[in-house]
């Protein structure tokens, strides 16, 4: 309102100097007020009685206009037409507020160490909900459609696209057991026990039927991926535990969907026969496998499309997003598991798409996914807070307390019992500490809440729904606040293994592959068709058939080791270029020349400045030393890690130069290998032209439209001196628009 606006301006003037956080806090406050007041701008029709001042104002305006109409109507220089932009304005305001909150937490470091972000966001949501309630307005509640169709998919896609495949498949059995059997156990145990509780006199809830309780149990039993992600990513726990809990939270969606629909249907039906129960089991397989199938289909489509996008690189990221979103929506059409579909799509699409798209598209995809999922997560938690204040509540002490108790109990029992069975089949057993973390990490979140909202009114009475919702919210709050806050000190206390901050090493990559082949070979010698045998078969199938179809050009036959190596080299090169020190490196060549003369084999004549093995090796070294992404290009599937990515950080020039100098020193001596050790040294050269053109590329080597840091190989195998003459240069930094396609990174 105009009155508000007038009030704000003087405040702004006051915000002069002062500590950043204070200024920031006051901006935040203002935004809070703004957002609160924006909700007062409700639909003009029908609210005349409750907002007298507003009406008076409007009437005043009308009167003004009316007066003007009788006179000569002046041209309206400034008009107010809020309704026109109302919807997008409010949405943007909410999102902006959410993000500012997030920013604010990081400015106040002390709190963010103790309290996980999700808690803070819920708290803010509570505040806003309280403010809105105080203004006696209707708050935006977490509409189920909004949640499932708009807020959830980005988070799941982000998780699925960057899923660490190796860890996931290695532990697939365990994850599936936890997800399916664990969730089933939870649902039935909680449902059954709550029904028993409802029968108690004191609960005053005897009208709740068994099916309703089972429905309630199925809603609350599922571990929530959003909450798990939010909490676990801040504690940097080791990969095994992370993938166990996270994988479980993703895969139990199928179970939740089936159970929810099952019980809902049953509660409308009169009788439940054994046939119905059997159909329920069948529907579980249909839902999960169907969802995966849908995802795979869209994934293959996406990969196939990306094969042809070399001429129109700008829209490549869009294809990835749209195909994935379509997979989700298509699965939801048939009541299949949308989450599993989305995950399957991302997982299937990724290796092929990454081989096809340009580096810029890859970066775009990475950034957009992280951005969207970040925003979504923030919004979800804030909405959760707001909806808590708003939602229909029916506080029933006994029901709520017992729900909480049984949730914890069933989780612990489930995990311990299942681990006992699983450990018989696992090579790397789960210790008691692991079990504790897995049990403790079973957080509930917004999915449970939204599903609760979905329960129809005619379930029983309105009170039942309210009671359920209250219980659900309490459990969510408890798990997120209490468990979320205490898990970090507990992890420290129990000395649980943390995630290794390791840089990708070409040695590790080599030996991992070597080991794979070795184990496959041993399995073959034993005559035993085990894990490695089938994995090898799948890889072979992938290489001979699938890659040919889905990857453009010659990239399809590139072995993984070479792509990995090329990626590293390219990154190094880019960093070198970005540091702008390309032109200054020839100082090294002096040393190299000297040592080169000592070598017994003559170095062939070169036309161009002599940066040879040294330079190349130096690049490699620099890169490796500063690289923090992983061998699959992005091990960080967490948003928090992502922000720490040094490649995107501004590296301090000084540090970089110092490292480089040091490395130059080390490089040259290793590479001055005495002649007796090698017959034909393959001297690889990187040719640096002063300005912005950086890489040479030998025409003979490959006709790939995309590129690797194709370094010349000067080994004697190359009989033609052609290599020296024609070297079309490739620009790395900022090509013109028409060259977009040719300039970037292989994978």
């Amino acid at each position, binding site marked *: 309102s105009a009155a508000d606006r007038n009030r704000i301006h003087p405040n702004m003037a006051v915000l002069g100097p002062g500590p950043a956080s204070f200024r920031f806090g006051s901006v935040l406050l203002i935004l809070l007020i703004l957002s609160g007041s924006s909700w007062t701008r409700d639909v003009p029709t029908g609210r005349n009685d409750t907002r007298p001042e507003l009406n008076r104002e409007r009437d005043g305006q009308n009167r003004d206009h009316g007066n003007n109409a009788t006179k000569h109507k002046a041209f309206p220089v400034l008009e107010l037409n809020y309704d026109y932009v109302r919807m997008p304005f409010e949405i943007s305001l909410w999102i902006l507020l959410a993000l500012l909150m997030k920013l604010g937490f990081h400015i106040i470091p002390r709190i963010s160490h103790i309290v996980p972000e999700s808690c803070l966001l819920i708290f803010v949501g509570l505040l806003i909900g309280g403010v809105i309630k105080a203004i006696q307005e209707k708050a935006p509640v977490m509409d189920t459609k909004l949640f499932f169709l708009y807020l959830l998919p980005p988070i799941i896609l982000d998780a699925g696209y960057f899923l660490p495949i190796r860890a996931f498949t290695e532990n697939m059995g365990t994850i599936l057991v936890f997800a399916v059997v664990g969730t089933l156990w939870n649902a039935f145990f909680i449902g059954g026990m709550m029904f028993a509780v409802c029968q108690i006199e004191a609960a005053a809830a005897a009208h709740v039927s068994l099916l309703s309780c089972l429905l309630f149990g199925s809603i609350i039993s599922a571990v929530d991926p959003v909450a798990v992600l939010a909490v676990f990513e801040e504690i940097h726990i080791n990969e095994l535990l992370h993938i166990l809990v996270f994988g479980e939270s993703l895969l139990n969606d199928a179970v939740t969907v089936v159970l929810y629909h099952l019980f809902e249907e049953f509660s409308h039906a009169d009788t439940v026969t054994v046939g119905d129960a059997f159909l329920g089991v069948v529907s579980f397989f249909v839902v999960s496998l169907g969802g995966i199938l849908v995802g795979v289909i869209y994934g293959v489509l996406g990969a196939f499309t990306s094969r042809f996008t070399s001429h129109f690189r700008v829209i490549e990221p869009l294809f990835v997003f749209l195909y994935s979103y379509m997979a989700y929506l298509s699965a939801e059409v048939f009541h299949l598991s949308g989450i599993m579909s989305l995950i399957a799509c991302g997982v299937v699409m990724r290796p092929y798409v990454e081989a096809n798209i340009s580096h810029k598209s890859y970066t775009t995809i990475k950034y957009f996914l992280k951005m969207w999922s970040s925003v979504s997560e923030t919004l979800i938690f804030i909405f959760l807070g707001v909806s808590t204040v708003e939602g229909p509540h029916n506080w029933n002490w006994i029901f709520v307390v017992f729900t909480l108790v049984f949730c914890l109990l069933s989780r612990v029992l489930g995990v311990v019992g299942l681990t006992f069975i699983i450990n018989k089949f696992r090579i790397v057993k789960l210790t008691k500490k692991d079990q504790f973390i897995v049990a403790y990490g079973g957080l509930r979140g917004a999915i449970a809440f939204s599903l609760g909202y979905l329960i129809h009114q005619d379930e029983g009475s309105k009170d039942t729904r309210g009671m359920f919702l209250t219980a659900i919210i309490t459990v969510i709050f408890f798990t997120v606040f209490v468990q979320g806050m205490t898990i970090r000190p507990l992890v420290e206390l129990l000395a649980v293994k943390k995630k290794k901050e*390791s840089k990708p090493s070409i040695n590790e990559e080599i030996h991992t592959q*070597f*080991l794979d082949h070795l184990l496959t070979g041993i399995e073959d*010698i034993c005559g*035993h068709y085990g894990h490695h045998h089938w994995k090898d078969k799948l890889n072979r199938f992938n290489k001979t058939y699938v890659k040919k179809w889905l990857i453009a050009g010659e990239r399809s036959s590139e072995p993984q080791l*070479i792509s990995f190596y090329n990626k590293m080299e390219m990154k190094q090169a880019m960093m070198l270029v970005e540091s702008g020190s390309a032109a200054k490196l020839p100082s090294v060549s002096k040393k190299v020349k000297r040592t080169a003369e000592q070598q017994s084999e003559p170095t062939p004549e070169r036309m161009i400045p002599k940066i040879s093995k040294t330079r190349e090796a130096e690049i490699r070294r620099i890169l490796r030393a500063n690289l923090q992404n992983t061998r699959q290009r992005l091990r960080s599937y967490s948003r928090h890690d992502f922000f720490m990515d040094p490649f995107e950080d501004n590296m301090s020039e000084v540090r970089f130069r110092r490292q480089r100098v040091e490395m130059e020193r080390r490089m040259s001596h290793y590479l001055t290998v*005495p002649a007796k*050790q090698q017959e034909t040294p393959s001297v690889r050269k990187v040719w640096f032209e002063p300005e912005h053109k950086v890489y040479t590329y030998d025409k003979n080597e*490959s006709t790939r439209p995309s590129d690797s840091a194709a370094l010349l190989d000067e080994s004697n195998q190359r009989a033609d001196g052609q290599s020296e003459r024609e070297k079309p240069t490739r620009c790395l930094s900022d090509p013109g628009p028409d060259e977009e396609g040719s300039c970037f990174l292989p994978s």
Partner: protein
Amino acid sequence: MGATQTHSEYQYENMVGKTGFSTEQIKNLHMRFQQLSGNEKTLRREHLKNIPALANNPIKTEIIEAFFDKRNQLDNELGSYEEIGFEEFLMVMSHFRPLSIKTSEEERTAMRRQKVRFLFNMHDTDGDGKITLEEYRKAVEELLSESGTIGQEGARAIADAAMLEVASTNVPNLGPDDFYEGITFEHFEEILKDLEMESRMHVRFLDMNTANLRCGKTSS
């Protein structure tokens, strides 16, 4: 027949102690050994080469060599056999035993060392205790051997880079005139320490039953 049976039972017990396998596993492996060797008492390289499933494996030669490498036996001499008996076969297989939950810390370290040693021996073909640049290059080339000529040049660069990495992580103060001769066993252990070999390098011997043993039979 009766005499040989008790004789082999006695031998089995002996091997249980040496290799850590259970009697059941040893029996299964013995059956496989006899299948591979065509019921002879010793196994030769040709027997292993004839396994059809192994044909696609890029490091087939190294794997086969490992069976005949004397260093992988308990005595740790140098050189290689021409043919091996069941005991040697079992000894090599024992490097791939999985951990059990009851393994103590020292046993874990010992097992890891044993497995890493096995890998080291596979690379260090001339037995001088170091993996030189040439040997490493050869290993990488084999890994990439399925991809034709691109593989060869790429292999060289990759092997060079890898050696460089080992050199710089393990010998940080390499002077300007020093020369890094090759990867020693300690350095090798160091670069692989993050991979946790003791839990990764294993094959499930439990699941073998005789029915499976008929697949992948050698030449009829």
